[in-house]
């Protein structure tokens, strides 16, 4: 019975990732090829694509998506490399990890809105230097927002990508067999006189990078196709391709959907191209680096790595501090004329207004996040258990599953989510089910990866003891493993909830806009008239996932903890 459940779960796991994405792609491909019977288009043709190619700025849009995605991934990768290089095996690493973990769960939309707050000409940094230093009595006319190169978009994407990559790298480095080997190799390099940073670059990075390549590519794919960040911070003429797809889909002229579908398909190509370019850059960098590494210079790149690391960390901390202070200040501000550093007074009115208005969206967010995360955690546990029992890939999941896992992260959301929405409208699936499925597709990979780390670390000898005492596989799973894995399970659950909370497009599209969550409301309000309300919404958006993690930290202290029982 238990083994059947395990086997079924494995197939369910793969099906639940492939089917929605696959159905979405097929459903977006048909209208892209002008097959849309509902509006009287019965013949396949390339008309939509040729219309798309007639859009003057289409190349510009694609280039903008490529540029922002590649730059953000590059910054995040170099940042990860340099920070790890200077902090590997030092006390600083734990400190960096604690600092960046909360950034990981900040929704993309919230990060973009917060960055918009400080980059705005009337933002807090500009107020600090006005009017004394700058002479500004009104905000400067030049603005860093909506710049035509998408630099502010790049910064926001990089802020979100860096913690993700860093934590992925740390989870790989935490694998016991790998950590052991690498530590010994670094020791050898150090005794040969290599500086710590150079030793990391020469010994650890070449082993580490291939293991985090998939997450890096996922970051890249995500960065090229993200909608909410360029929607909030990006340029408008033209915008990035993903934003254009969204706007065309929402166009009142339903025939624009054909063009939007074609653009969504084009986006798969653009994201694919970004991945190819990245792999080429990777090859070039590896070749270049290999030659330099063999020169034997003991402090090669050491100085640069620490400069970049401290610059990245410094900028990140400064930005986060500025964002937080300015969000909190705005959320309590009364009148706040421009060059003043602080508002004229403080009030609770914005919090009062928002908290009433946000109760339903918060409830909706929970109604989506909880079932999705619980199912994702349960399914991931069953799949991991199945692997461990069948002795397949006891240490790390096989490459095939890993690739399946990254499927929803590699295929641009704007492509398959539109297809999925169309498909679910076609079969009359309502709004909740498609939203739950879309969230699930995004939540499952993160939950699985997070749990897999814990499963890798689990001391298998406990299960042997269990079997030795005559327990069934089910009992071992239920009574031995799960209680001991309670803390990582709670963390995975919290992560799942946080990921679900932060989803914008997977809520908006399949939900037909009828299901408001804190994130969709926050994006809507960010375009609204009140900076103060937007500050409150953004803060709530940041706080909600943190509550989940606080619970995940606190609950294991209460349950399955011998110290708690002795009270």
């Amino acid at each position, binding site marked *: 019975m238990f083994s059947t459940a395990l086997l079924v779960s494995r197939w369910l796991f793969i099906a639940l990732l492939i089917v929605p994405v696959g159905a979405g792609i097929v459903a977006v491909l048909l209208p892209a090829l002008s097959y849309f019977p509902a*509006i009287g288009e019965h013949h396949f043709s390339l008309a939509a694509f040729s219309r798309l190619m007639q859009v003057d700025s289409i190349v510009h849009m694609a280039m903008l998506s490529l540029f922002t995605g590649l730059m953000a991934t590059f910054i995040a990768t170099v940042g990860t490399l340099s920070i790890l290089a200077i902090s590997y095996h030092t006390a600083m690493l734990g400190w960096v990890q604690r600092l960046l973990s909360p950034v990981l769960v900040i929704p993309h939309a919230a990060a973009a809105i917060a960055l918009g707050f400080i980059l705005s000409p009337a933002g807090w940094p500009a107020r600090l230097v006005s009017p004394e230093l700058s002479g500004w009595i009104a905000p400067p006319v030049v603005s860093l927002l909506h710049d035509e190169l998408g630099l502010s978009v790049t910064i926001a994407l990089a802020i979100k990508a860096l913690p993700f990559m860093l934590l992925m790298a740390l989870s790989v480095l935490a694998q016991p067999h790998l950590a052991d080997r690498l530590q010994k190799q670094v020791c050898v390099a150090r005794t040969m006189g290599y500086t710590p940073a150079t030793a990391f670059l020469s010994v650890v990075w070449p082993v580490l990078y291939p293991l985090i390549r998939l997450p890096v590519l996922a970051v890249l794919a995500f960065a090229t196709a993200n909608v909410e960040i360029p929607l909030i911070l990006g340029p408008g*003429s033209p915008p990035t391709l993903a934003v254009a797809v969204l706007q065309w889909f929402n166009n009142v002229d339903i025939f624009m959907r054909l063009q939007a579908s074609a653009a969504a398909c084009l986006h798969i190509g653009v994201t694919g191209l970004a991945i190819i370019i990245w792999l080429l850059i990777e090859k070039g960098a590896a070749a270049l680096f290999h030659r330099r590494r063999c020169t034997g210079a003991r402090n090669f790149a050491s100085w640069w790595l620490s400069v970049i690391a401290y610059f990245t960390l410094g900028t990140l901390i400064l930005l986060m501090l500025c964002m937080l202070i300015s969000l909190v200040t705005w959320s309590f501000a009364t009148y706040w004329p421009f060059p003043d550093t602080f508002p004229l007074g403080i009030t609770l009115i914005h919090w009062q*207004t928002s908290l009433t208005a946000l109760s339903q969206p918060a409830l909706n967010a929970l109604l989506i996040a909880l079932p999705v995360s619980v199912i994702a955690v349960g399914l991931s546990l069953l799949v991991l258990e199945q692997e461990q029992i069948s002795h397949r890939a006891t240490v790390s999941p096989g490459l095939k599953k890993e690739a399946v896992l990254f499927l929803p992260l590699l295929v641009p959301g704007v492509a398959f989510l539109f297809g999925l929405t169309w498909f679910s409208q076609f079969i009359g699936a309502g*709004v909740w089910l498609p939203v739950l499925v879309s969230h699930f597709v995004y939540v499952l990979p993160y939950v699985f990866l997070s749990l897999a780390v814990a499963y890798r670390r689990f001391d298998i000898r406990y299960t042997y003891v269990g079997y030795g005492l005559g327990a069934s596989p089910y009992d071992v799973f239920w009574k031995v493993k799960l209680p001991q894995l309670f803390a990582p399970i709670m963390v995975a659950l919290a992560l799942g909830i946080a990921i679900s909370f932060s989803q914008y497009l997977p809520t908006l599209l399949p939900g037909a806009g009828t299901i408001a969550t804190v994130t969709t409301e926050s994006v809507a309000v960010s375009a609204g*008239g009140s900076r103060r309300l937007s500050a409150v919404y953004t803060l709530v958006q940041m706080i909600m996932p943190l509550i989940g993690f606080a619970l995940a930290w606190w609950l294991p202290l209460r349950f399955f903890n011998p110290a708690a029982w002795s009270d």
Partner: protein
Amino acid sequence: MIKRINTLILLISWAVTAHAQTINFHAWGGSPQVNRYLQWVNTQTEAEFGITVNHVKLADTSDAVSRVLAEKAAGNHDRGSVDLIWINGENFAAMKRHGLLHQNWVSSLTNFALTNPDKNRNMTMDFGIPTDGQEAPWGKAAMVFYYNARYLDVPPKNAAELLSFSQQHPGRFAYPLPTDYLGISFLKYLALTLPDIPHERLYAPVDAHSLRRVTMPLFEYLDALHPTLWHEGKFFARQASRLQRLFDDNALFVSFSFTAAEIPAAVSRFDLPTSTRTYAMADGSLSNVHFIGIPYNSGHKDAARKVVNFLLSPRAQARKKQRQVWGDDTVLDVSLLSDAQSRLFAGEQAHPAALPVNGHNQLLAEPHASWTDALREAWFTRYGDHL
């Protein structure tokens, strides 16, 4: 036994009707006042009729129009996701053209008679297009401008002065993309007030010749204005509400709105500076009526009708008119109301940031609905893709 079955049947029918009593009201959600007003409406309809009004907050009303259109295309003719929709102008024109609206229901509303439709033609005309009982009037609005008295002593009073103001203070004025309601309204205001434009042509359906006659002077003006705009006219706000925030940032010195009452309300909420002053342009203010429609495929038409009738009641209209609530002008003919009812509409205290009483110099009726698309398309052709 029979009694029990009866109770059961009652319970089931109650559950079924209770289930049918949630109305999805798709309405623009960018204004906190409107949102709060609709929350109040929900409490009233829940108490009075047991109908829950779920406000689906739209960033852009055309989203809901395309949703109904997509539902029709997908063959969903009786369980649509939109039960009520707040529309006017081109969105109404589009829905009427595609047969997306429930027909002949407005005259059966008891409160509709209070709008005095026989006398007030604009209760049954939406941007020059007859409503034909497919939508009920809800409120009235006219365009107002506002300026920051901290930076400006005298605001620009007509289109020509606006241009010279913007040239003197580059980057301190902005208008939203013409895909936004306020953006296209700004273009219409210019088209209706700039000299050298045959204004009467705007009230007839558009044709190529009149479009050229109108857009030539219009674009000449905009060509001069754009380089002086916020972001040098290279980035346009997608939504009107963004202007209010930019004004609050002190980034803009002059801005405009279609809801005069929103401005003092925003000042009271700290969302606009105390030095904000509202005024109307000397060369005229664009004005119109906004409506509520029921999509043809709504599964809750009866409940939706009840809600609309409530929205037209003196009580709901008077509350909507209060400046602290929303400040939207009533569509009811107050002379038809009883004394008790018309007392609900009695005046309020003046607010320094509010438009003075009788502040409008001249009300300009909306051009024929066909001009909206034509002007917008011409704008995008001239100034490129902005998305």
